[in-house]
C-alpha cells in the first residue's frame, strides 16, 4: 500500500534502498515516484515511460512480475542496476560488476553500511587494544 504523500519528508530524497544496505539518501529530490509519491533524487529515479518510479517500487513491481512469469529476464529489466542486486550482493561477480560499471550513489558506502558489514569486524576482535 502506498504511503500518503504527507508521510514523506520534504526537501530530501526519501528512498532508502542502497547498493549494499538500506540507508538514508540525503540528495535533493528531483522527481516524485508515481507508485508511492515519495520525493526521489535522480539516482533513485527509474524511468517508466515519461514517469519515474523509486527503486523500492520498481523492486516490488519486478517481484510481482517474476512471480507470474518464467524464462529469461527481459532486456528492459533493471538487472544491471546495482540497486537490484539485493539477495545476492555478496556474489563475487555481481559485486564486481555493480561497483565498476556504474557511477552509483556516493552515499552507498556509509558508516551505517560499515556497521551492517559486521563480518568485517572479525579482523578487529582481539586486535584493537583501544576497544571496550
Amino acid at each position, binding site marked *: 500500500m502506498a504511503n500518503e504523500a504527507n508521510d514523506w519528508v520534504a526537501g530530501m530524497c526519501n528512498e532508502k534502498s542502497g547498493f549494499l544496505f538500506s540507508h538514508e539518501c540525503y540528495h535533493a529530490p528531483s522527481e516524485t515516484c508515481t507508485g508511492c509519491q515519495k520525493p526521489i533524487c535522480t539516482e533513485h529515479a527509474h524511468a517508466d515511460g515519461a514517469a519515474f518510479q523509486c527503486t523500492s517500487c520498481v523492486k516490488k513491481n519486478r517481484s510481482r512480475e517474476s512471480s507470474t512469469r518464467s524464462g529469461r529476464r527481459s532486456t528492459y529489466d533493471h538487472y544491471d542496476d546495482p540497486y537490484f542486486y539485493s539477495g545476492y550482493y555478496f556474489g563475487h561477480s555481481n559485486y564486481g560488476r555493480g561497483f565498476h560499471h556504474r557511477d552509483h550513489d556516493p552515499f552507498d558506502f556509509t558508516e551505517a553500511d560499515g556497521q551492517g558489514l*559486521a563480518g568485517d569486524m572479525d579482523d578487529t*576482535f582481539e*586486535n*584493537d*587494544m*583501544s*576497544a*571496550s
Partner: protein
Amino acid sequence: MPSPPRKRRWLVYALGGGAGHLIRATALARAAIRSATVFPFGIEICLLTNSPFAEVIPISDELGPGHEVIRIASDLNRDETAQQIHQHLAERDFDVLVVDTFPRGLGGELKDVLPRLRCRKVLIHRDLNPEYCSLVDVAGSLKDFDLLLVPGEPALFSSAAHAIVTAPWLIRDPEELLPPAEARNRLVVDSHTQPVVAVIGCGTVAEIQQMRLLADDLSTRFESAAIRFIAPKSTTAPTKAVAVSTWPFLESIRAVSVIVGSGGYNTVNEATATKTLLIGIARKRLYDRQEKRLRLTGEPIGVSEVADRLATLLHNGVTHNAQQPQYTNGVHQAIELIESAS
C-alpha cells in the same frame, strides 16, 4: 617460628579503552582495600590497565599506598601488549586474579595462560557483543574461571552455573556522595535552585570533543540552566559552558538535574542508582552494547536530538531530591563472594 600472616594479593586485569573497565575495576579494588571484615590481614592490589584515562584519573590515590597500578601504554599493538601482560603475570605472585569483561584477555593473551595459573580466577562478566562470542570461543574460556560475577546488568553468560549476579558496581557508596550544596560548589554553581545539566566528556577523543561542543551549544540555548562540561582532566580549549575537571563525577551527582552522557556502564548505572535523569547517547563500541543498555531505562538518542530532549525536560520542570540516594553498591557483595571460597 611461623611467618607472620601476609596480605591477600589480588591482581586485577582491567584492560580496555575508555574509562569503563578501569573505573569498575577500581571500584572493586578500592572497596576491597577498605574492607576490614572480609580478610583481617588486608588485601594488596595490583591493577593492570592500558586505558588512556589511567593518566588522568587518580587511580593510585583511590587505592592508597601499598598498592600498585601498572599502566601499559595505550598505543601498543596486540603482541606488545600481550608480551607485557605475560611478563607482569610471570613476575608476580598473587592469590586472586580478577579479569574485567574479557575472559580471553583483550587481545586473547590470557587464553593459554589461565589454565596454568594456580590461583582463584574471577571474571567480571559485563555484557559482550554476541558476534564476538560466536566468532571467538569466549564460552570455552569461561570454564577457566572459578567464579563469574555479573555486575548488575543482563549479560550473555549470566545463566552459567558459576555465575552470580550482584547489584551494579559503583565507585562510591551512597553515604560518600557530597550533599547538594557541596556538590553544587564543586560544580561551580552559585545558585541553590538553578537546574544543573552535566555533559559528560568521556569515551574517545572525538567523542569528548563532540560533547564539549555540545555543552557549548546547550549553554547558549539554555540560559536558565547551569550547563557544565565534566571531564576527568581540564580542557584547555575555550568553552562557553563552564568546564569542570572532577573525578569521580558520582560524588557530585546530587547537584545534577540532568546528565547528558553516553550509554557506558558507569554513566548509566550511576544515573539509575541515584535516580538522576539521563539523556543517553549510544556510542558504537566493538564489544559493549550501549544501545541495549540504554534501552533498559529509556530511549537512546543521537547528539542532534539532545537539545530538544533537554528542552522538554526543563520545560516540564526538573526536581531536586534532597534525600541521600539509597542504592546497593554491588562491589561489597562481590568482595565477599571472591574471598568466601578462596
